């Protein structure tokens, strides 16, 4: 067996059109897999041999699993939903001029606020940095333990899980739901299905409603929603997000993971023979078959073919077919199998997090230790802190002042009546501090023989005027530099280098920007 990630089982094209499985009618109890344990006569909806290139979707009705991983998933669900709903309500005091929402994406003012961080539109690369960190972290966990993200934390998984929970609460567990699906339309069926969809829709609207709070002051927007005075675009986005939540989490479910999401395709390159993946321990489980009381366990595998792992699976696969693209590694089959193993008195973890390496070794009766530190994981572990350090360095040394000098291009220069020349510039000063700052403007860098040009700031009187720039704001200045004819004659080129010096009069810090002064062709 070559259980490498790239040996994924591909859909069989030959079986197109022969898709006969119908779990809605086939799931009856056929005898016992072992004393006290029902044997489900069921075929995995997305079993390897049932994958034509195109087929109508067969609804999957996952049975409820109980166990460690299920509990972990509940915990992660509570945590992620909690973070999602609570974050916009957290406050962060930034002074009177700025919003006090801890996490705010302020499109109107082109700012991103993350607690103490304030990101202007032109500093969006910090967000790129955050995304780089997130993807590296994702690569690391994937190299270590496979699709942990898919199985536990991905919003698609969390909301699908939530929607299945609602479905189970209203319509009952798997068998009840199958019966309901099979049953003719009745008042009871209409009621149960419509109340399920109504709750899904309510959750969807709340989901969409929570998302828009990230884009506008949450208490204000909540008040506006309550009084019906919110901007229409807020309603539009609540509608869009609610619709996608309902569609993806309620209706499409595992199809999103199997057909829409690119991550399952990418992950094959992310893990290797040493990654811990949810796996069926074939060496221990096979040959599988029903087990009767008092039968010996000698000469047979531990798998009693009860198919509990199949019925709990939210993507409708049979984990015993080996590693599959469809598997989101939620580990619910681990819980289901462990429960059964407990009942029949066999050791647990017939399905467990295991490495390809160890699975292969088990075939010959050996074991292979888990190897966490491998070149790939070490690389990720080194790169993550490096990126983090780079970002921190960038943040700590973030300039709180930005100066841009734009030279007039039409006209390039203006001839004055005394034979001198004047150039026009637009100087933009960006004050990122939360206080008003005062600047003075000067020029330098002309050849020593040239007298300093006369500086005129449009809208300011007197020599060397002071320019106030409001907190967290930009000010554009029109500046003219005039040279007398005597200076122009001394220049050797029609484009002479020149530097603007912007001095913060508060602390004396200077910012320099080079540009040119243009004169007539000689």
């Amino acid at each position, binding site marked *: 067996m070559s259980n490498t990630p790239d040996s994924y089982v591909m859909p069989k094209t030959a079986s197109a059109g022969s898709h006969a499985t119908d779990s809605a009618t086939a799931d009856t109890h056929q005898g016992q897999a072992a004393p006290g344990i029902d044997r489900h006569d069921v075929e995995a909806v997305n079993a390897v041999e049932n994958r034509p290139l195109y087929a109508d979707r067969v609804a999957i009705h996952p049975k409820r699993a109980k166990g460690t991983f299920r509990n972990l998933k509940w915990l992660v669900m509570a945590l992620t939903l909690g973070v999602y709903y609570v974050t916009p309500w957290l406050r962060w005091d930034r002074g009177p001029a700025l919003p006090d929402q801890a996490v705010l994406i302020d499109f109107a003012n082109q700012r991103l606020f993350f607690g103490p961080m304030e990101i202007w539109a032109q500093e969006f690369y910090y967000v790129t940095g955050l995304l780089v960190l997130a993807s590296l972290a994702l690569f690391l966990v994937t190299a270590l333990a496979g699709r942990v993200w898919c199985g536990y934390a991905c919003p698609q998984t969390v909301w699908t899980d939530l929607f299945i929970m609602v479905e189970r609460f209203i319509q009952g567990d798997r068998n009840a739901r199958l019966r309901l699906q099979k049953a003719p339309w009745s008042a009871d069926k209409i009621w149960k299905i419509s109340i399920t969809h109504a709750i899904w829709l309510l959750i969807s609207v709340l989901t969409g409603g929570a998302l828009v709070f990230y884009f506008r002051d949450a208490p204000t927007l909540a008040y506006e929603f309550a009084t019906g005075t919110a901007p229409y675009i807020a309603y539009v986005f609540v509608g869009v997000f609610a619709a996608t939540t309902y569609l993806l989490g309620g209706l499409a479910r595992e199809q999103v993971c199997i057909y829409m999401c690119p991550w399952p395709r990418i992950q094959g390159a992310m893990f290797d023979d040493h990654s811990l993946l949810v796996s069926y321990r074939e060496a221990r489980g096979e040959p599988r078959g029903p087990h009767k009381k008092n039968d010996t366990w000698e000469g047979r595998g531990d798998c009693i073919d009860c198919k509990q792992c199949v019925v709990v699976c939210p993507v409708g696969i049979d984990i015993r077919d080996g590693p599959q693209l469809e598997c989101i590694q939620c580990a619910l089959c681990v819980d289901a199998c462990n429960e059964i193993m407990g009942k029949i008195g066999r050791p647990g973890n017939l399905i467990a997090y295991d490495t390809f390496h160890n699975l292969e070794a088990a075939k010959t009766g050996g074991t292979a230790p888990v190897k966490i530190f491998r070149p790939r994981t070490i690389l990720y572990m080194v790169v993550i802190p490096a990126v983090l350090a780079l970002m921190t360095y960038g943040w700590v040394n973030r300039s709180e002042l930005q100066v841009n000098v734009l030279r007039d291009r*039409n*006209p390039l220069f*203006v001839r004055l*009546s005394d034979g001198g020349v004047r150039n*026009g510039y637009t100087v933009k000063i960006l004050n990122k501090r939360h206080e008003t700052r005062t600047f003075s403007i000067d020029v330098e860098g002309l050849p020593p023989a040239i007298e300093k040009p006369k500086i005129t700031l449009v*809208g300011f009187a007197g020599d060397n005027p002071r320019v106030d720039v409001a907190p967290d704001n930009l000010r554009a200045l*029109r500046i003219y530099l005039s040279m007398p004819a005597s200076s122009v004659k001394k220049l050797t080129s029609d484009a002479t280098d020149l530097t603007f010096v912007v001095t913060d009069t508060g602390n004396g810090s200077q910012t320099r920007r080079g540009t040119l002064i243009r004169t007539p062709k000689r």
Partner: protein
Amino acid sequence: MADKGRFDEATGTHTTGHVWDDDLEELNKPLPKWWLYVLYACIIWAIVYWVLYPSWPMMTDYTKGTLGFSQRALVMEQVAAGKAAQAKFRDAIAKAEISEIPKKPELLNFALAGGKAAFGDNCAPCHGRGAQGFKGYPNLNDDDWIWGGDLEAIQTTIRHGIRSNADDDTRASDMPKFGEEDLLEKAQIKDVAEYVLSLGGSSKDADAAARGKEVYAENCASCHGENGEGNQELGAPNLADAIWLYGGDKADIVTSINTGRGGVMPPWSPRLDDVTIKQLTVYVHSLGGGK
């Protein structure tokens, strides 16, 4: 068409029953249902659209639709809304003296923005997009003004134009056509041109300039001044500086003396409203040469 098709074993599909050339048949491959439904939905959409919105062109008119939607009306609404939003500033500018506007930063910003737009729409064709001017059309960035460069003077020039037939208060001054009307001899014109060059220090023929000095004193000095310093009251340009509206070569100057030049600028007062003219004034004044 023949009647019903037969079932084709090899492909598992029915044929349409259409046979050519004895044995050439066509498999019945209907369009996908979803595709057809989308098409039908589009057709229904189109019919509903025809009823609700303007759609069909007629000979002289078009169908208006029951919703009464009109993109033109929408634009007019937006224009009106824009005007209403500007009303605060426009009213303040309408009331303010021209000299007051640059002292109030809010009004200054508004006037500069509006003036820049109005300049592009109305003035740029002659004076250039950057107000850099062309031969015969003054550069508005420089510090040389024929009719005066303070706010009041600029406003008057924009409002009434120069040598315009359409405005009684227009700026008017007519330099005689010394050559065309035979007021001066050709030689005299060449001499006086040389003298004009000497005023700015660029004459190369001192004798001719000396001869021209007398001609200048008799014919030109009354308007252009003893030393060629010009007179903004009369719209007589400074002849001693480095800026030449019609060119500073001797040939250009000779032509100017021969023809008297006399460029025309239309009066903008009836065409542009009072507020726009004030905005333009402030904008032109801000270009660097304003006095």
